[in-house]
């Protein structure tokens, strides 16, 4: 009750939480409190179950006892039918939480003889309500009265009175009605119950059935107007609203490595964000599964738990194939860190897939979920449904901080960036694999198309699958475009040769210079030698000349001396004269 009051705090219209998973989110709190609600739909769409669950949840979770008035099934049948959904009605009846009242009306036993009213039904219902202080009432299916009572005028007037009376009683009621051809219900009950109308539907599309719920009308309240898929499993009803989780999940700035070194480097060297959603898309045979397997192996090595949904291959086949590129997944399966879940997408409807996903994730509590591939869900024209389903899966996983990796096969004819299921907008990191056909070869290229919240590399890497896993190489990007494979090798050879030639050139030039230098040096040496020779020659001449001068001097001296000996006196005379 406290919960109910809390939920309806902001709404002017008081509401009664149904307790049905997901339904209270669509209707922002539940059914209108103290008013009747019409639940209509075709045969086998779950009207009765909706009613029963409303009562059982009310009795067990909100302490609101309830009355179930059945016009079709007997109490025993009803108890047995819902026991398979885990509802123990007998116990609830014993504890005066629920009253089952089977109203049996046999047309052949009845004769109309004048004026009457349905006060008997009112009294009976009133008695049942008062006996346990019921707050909730389900009438299933009141339209049976139309078969039992011939006078429609009276019946319609009485039904109008009944719904008025239920309102006056202040009970929250569910009235079920069979769907009519043109109208919501066969007998036009929607005329009388105008506060809230819920439509259940069970459609088969491409051989798989989908249950849907829609709030047709909710007077005085906002509500989700979409058709919401729901499912009925061993836990009862669960409506899966797209919006139930919203965009309020916590984000993590922790990173997880992808298991491929170069890929991590492309993502700032740290890998993906934890709790993000990764899409690996590409054409057939480009190695999407290999990337997924790398990621799984890397996670298991860190001791994390991985849940691997394979929709195309059997786990054994997948493990064998991955073994050929050196990824040993079997070890991790044995250690219990990796769990495969292999189902054909066509095996059951989308909602069931969603439900099994929820269930398995809740059981296994993985850190990483891999779905390979997601586009196999698209059979026929269910694209929109697949998208909403995937959005719900993504929301669910994000809310649980689980990193999700999806692979998607891209049609060869459509644009690479176009995923079949159109979920690109909900993807955080998108790796695009493409094949590059060039010179008679088909090579793989990979790039990060987007990666929210990180400065990812814009480079195309060549993606090579080796016997020891996936390798990413830098591709040749040159004047003639992107080259991969042998074209890249050839281009590299050409480049190498060019480099070699250049190197040789340089060597040659160096040698030439050296030679020139040496020539120059030898010339200089020769000049030096010449010069030296000339110099010594000159010196010699100079010496000779000097010697000559000396000799001449000496000769002169000697001559003078000899003259002096002859004319000493004259000389002296001369000296005296001087």
């Amino acid at each position, binding site marked *: 009750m406290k919960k109910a009051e809390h939920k309806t705090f902001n709404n002017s219209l008081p509401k009664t939480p149904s307790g049905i998973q997901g339904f209270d989110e669509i209707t922002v709190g539940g059914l209108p409190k103290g008013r009747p609600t019409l639940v209509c739909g075709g045969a086998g769409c779950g009207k009765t179950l909706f009613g029963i669950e409303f009562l059982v949840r009310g009795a067990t979770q909100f302490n609101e006892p309830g009355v179930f008035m059945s016009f079709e099934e007997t109490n025993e049948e009803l108890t047995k039918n819902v026991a398979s959904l885990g509802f123990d009605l007998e116990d609830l009846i014993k504890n005066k939480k629920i009253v089952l*009242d089977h*109203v*049996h*009306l046999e047309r052949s*036993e*009845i*004769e*109309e*003889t*004048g*004026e*009457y*009213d*349905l*006060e*008997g*039904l009112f*009294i*009976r219902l*009133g*008695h049942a309500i008062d006996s346990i202080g019921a707050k909730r009432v389900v009438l299933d299916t009141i339209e049976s*009265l139309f078969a*039992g*009572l011939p006078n429609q005028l009276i019946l319609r007037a009485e039904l109008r009175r009944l719904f008025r009376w239920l309102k006056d009683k202040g009970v929250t009621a569910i009235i079920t009605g069979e769907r009519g051809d043109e109208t919501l219900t066969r007998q036009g009950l929607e005329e009388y119950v105008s506060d809230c109308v819920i439509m259940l539907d069970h459609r088969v599309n491409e051989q798989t059935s989908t249950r849907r719920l829609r709030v047709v009308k909710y007077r005085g309240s906002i509500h989700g107007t979409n058709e919401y898929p729901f499912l009925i499993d061993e836990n009862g009803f669960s409506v899966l609203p797209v919006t139930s989780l919203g965009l309020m999940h916590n984000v993590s700035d922790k990173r997880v490595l992808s298991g491929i070194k170069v890929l991590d480097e492309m993502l700032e060297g740290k890998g993906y964000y934890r709790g993000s959603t990764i899409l690996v898309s590409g054409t057939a045979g480009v190695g999407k599964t290999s990337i997924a397997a790398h990621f799984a192996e890397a996670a298991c090595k860190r001791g994390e738990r991985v849940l691997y949904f394979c929709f195309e291959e059997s786990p054994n086949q997948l493990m064998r194939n991955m073994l050929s590129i050196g990824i040993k997944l079997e070890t991790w399966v044995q250690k219990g860190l990796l769990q495969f879940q292999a189902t054909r997408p066509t095996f059951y409807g989308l909602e069931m897939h969603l439900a099994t996903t929820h269930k398995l994730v809740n059981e296994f509590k993985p850190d990483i979920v891999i779905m390979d591939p997601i586009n196999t869900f698209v059979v026929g024209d269910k694209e929109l449904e697949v998208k909403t389903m995937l959005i719900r899966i993504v929301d669910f996983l994000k809310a649980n901080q689980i990193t999700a990796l999806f692979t998607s096969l891209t049609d060869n004819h459509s644009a690479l960036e176009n995923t079949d299921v159109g979920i690109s907008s909900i993807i955080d990191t998108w790796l695009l694999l493409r094949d590059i056909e060039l010179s008679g070869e088909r090579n793989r290229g990979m790039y990060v198309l987007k990666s929210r919240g990180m400065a990812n590399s814009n480079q195309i890497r060549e993606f090579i699958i080796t016997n020891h896993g996936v390798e990413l190489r830098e591709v040749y990007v040159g004047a003639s475009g992107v080259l991969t494979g042998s074209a890249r090798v050839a281009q590299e050879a050409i480049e190498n040769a060019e480099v070699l030639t250049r190197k040789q050139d340089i060597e040659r030039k160096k040698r030439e210079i050296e030679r020139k230098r040496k020539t120059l040096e030898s010339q200089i040496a020769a000049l030096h030698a010449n010069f030296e020779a000339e110099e010594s020659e000159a010196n010699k001449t100079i010496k000779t000349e000097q010697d000559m001068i000396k000799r001449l001097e000496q000769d002169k001296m000697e001559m003078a001396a000899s003259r002096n000996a002859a004319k000493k006196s004259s000389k002296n005379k001369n000296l005296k004269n001087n």
Partner: protein
Amino acid sequence: MSSNRERLEENLVATEKDKWVLRLYIAGKTPKALTAFTNLEKICKEQLNGKFSVEVIDLLINPQLGVEDQILALPTLVRKLPVPVRKIIGDLSNTERVLVGLDLLPIN
């Protein structure tokens, strides 16, 4: 239909000696209830020669008693005996329908 009718007539013959047990369900002394009661009294006197008992059950006083006979409409007259159980709803103003309902052919 005809075989059904024959069977009922046999029934009627077999139980003619027995008393007719009738129950009239009402909810308070509403005009409809009073009309029904008056009409019933008249029919019984005319058709059943005193070999009958009528029990009037007011569901306002004993609401749980309506469950047994699956009473929805009021007033309802239930023929408990002779079997099979027949139900006649309404204020019994249409005598002919009442007699058909009770498997009593009107005396010509």
